[in-house]
């Protein structure tokens, strides 16, 4: 029994984050009702305050450097800008959100190798960033509408889609692992070894990253206000890579954690325990997606 203790601890830790409320929009430009209320509890964290202060300083330096670069267009400041944008993305993703929780659930419910895990993290960040780029360019050049006003609606719709996709994917994981647990002989896992090895990361990356990244949107708009569309694209890419690095750190340590914990389980029990953890993770993902998809649908349609 004590060998199952680490698995129980990890799973309990994983369940904690699912407590929360719906996503936020810019309070200055979102109409009332499209936002959440002040949430409730747990722990004090001076770490959060530090992240916020660093983010503020980085953003300020970033905007100053963008201005400098646009005034003389030298190569040196551009390199510094790219490095800063990368750091801004990394710190930005260290704060809450950005799909890190879903990414960890993915690791628990699948069996991704380390390179696949890193690729998954980068895919989430790139989709998140590209979604912001497409949103800005689409609204500005194609639809020619106010980005700040319209983006609030776009974010609501993409959040609804994101939560819906997460719910569907979670349900899929739940069913797949339930089949592996209860109908082992007929399970796809035995028919095709590695079927849940987690090689197809794109559906997950799209589900998690489809909501436009507000940081990318703001940097893009700032650059475009100085006729720097290409610079905006370059910095958006750097921010996405920075975010990807932070998410990769989370995913790789989660893979190491899962591997270490499962090693304590004997070979016979390994698959049963893995399937049970995967099933519960799938259930948690599905519940999470459904929990947030419903209010998101309500906001969009009512």
């Amino acid at each position, binding site marked *: 029994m004590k060998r199952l203790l680490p698995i129980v601890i990890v799973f309990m830790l994983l369940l904690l984050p699912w407590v929360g409320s719906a996503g936020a929009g810019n309070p200055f*430009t979102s109409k009332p009702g499209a936002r959440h209320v002040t949430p409730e*509890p747990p722990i004090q964290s001076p770490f959060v305050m530090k992240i916020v202060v660093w983010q503020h300083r980085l953003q300020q330096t970033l905007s100053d450097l963008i201005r400098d670069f646009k005034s003389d267009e030298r190569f040196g400041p551009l390199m510094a800008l790219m490095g800063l944008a990368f750091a801004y993305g990394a710190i930005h993703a260290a704060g809450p959100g950005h799909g890190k929780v879903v990414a960890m659930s993915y690791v628990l419910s699948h069996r991704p190798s380390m390179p696949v895990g890193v690729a998954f993290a980068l895919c989430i960040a790139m989709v998140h960033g590209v979604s912001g780029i497409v949103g800005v360019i689409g609204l500005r050049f194609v639809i020619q509408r106010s980005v700040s006003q319209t983006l609030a609606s776009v974010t609501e719709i993409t959040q609804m889609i994101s939560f819906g996709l997460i719910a569907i994917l979670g349900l899929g994981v739940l069913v797949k692992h339930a089949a592996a647990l209860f109908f082992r002989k007929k399970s796809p896992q035995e028919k095709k070894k590695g079927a849940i090895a987690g090689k197809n990361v794109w559906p997950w990356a799209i589900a998690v990253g489809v*909501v436009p990244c507000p940081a990318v949107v703001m940097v893009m708009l700032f650059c475009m206000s100085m006729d720097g569309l290409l610079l905006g694209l370059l910095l958006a890419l750097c921010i996405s890579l920075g975010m990807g690095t932070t998410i990769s750190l989370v995913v790789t*340590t989660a893979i190491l954690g899962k591997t*270490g914990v499962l090693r304590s389980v004997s070979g016979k029990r390994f698959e049963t325990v893995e399937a049970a953890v995967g099933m519960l993770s799938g259930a948690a993902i599905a519940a999470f997606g459904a929990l947030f998809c419903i209010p998101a649908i309500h906001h969009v349609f009512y």
Partner: protein
Amino acid sequence: MQWPLNKAAWLGLVCAAFSMAVGVPFPLLSKANAHPHVFIVQRLNLVFDVKGLAGIKVRWKMDDMFASMVAEDHDQNRNGTLEPDEVQSVKENAFIFIEEFNFFTFIKIDNRPFQIKFIRNFNATLENGRLVYEFLIPCHVTATDAYKKVSVSTYDPSYYTAIFFAKNNPVSLTAADAFELKTTIREDPDTKIYFDMIHPWTLFMEFRKKA
């Protein structure tokens, strides 16, 4: 004594805990966009009249990226400044919605919450790409011989916006000569925001009639 878990399991738990610490710093995280994306540096001006406190004039310097977004949408003639009709557009489309959040200003008078019903004199200025919002919160507190306590916390409950006091001259006074005042700015231990992880910076003020 035998350890309850083997080395691999311990290593796994340490890694899992680390990934939780970075990935899930706090039990909240489903809130996709809640961490701050807009940054404000604020200055407060406490305005007095003959009776006592008359109101609080708030001055918010918005971050450059938010400023460029607002300029892009509301500086219709692209002259780098905001004319009265553009200020009205900013007020209606990039300010008034925060009324729902008490204009991010949470006042307590003798520890009792004060509900802001309206604000006055909203103005937005844009100079060299720097955007500043200014508005007056009417808040009348009559001075007596005993100290009256007023606290002003400024925060966005959703934490999409982070508000900092300016380093230099964060608080100024207008027509306060007739009163004895004590002010201090510190974190308010009784108020917690953002999943109870942050105590907002708060102006604490005590004032009374001069003897």
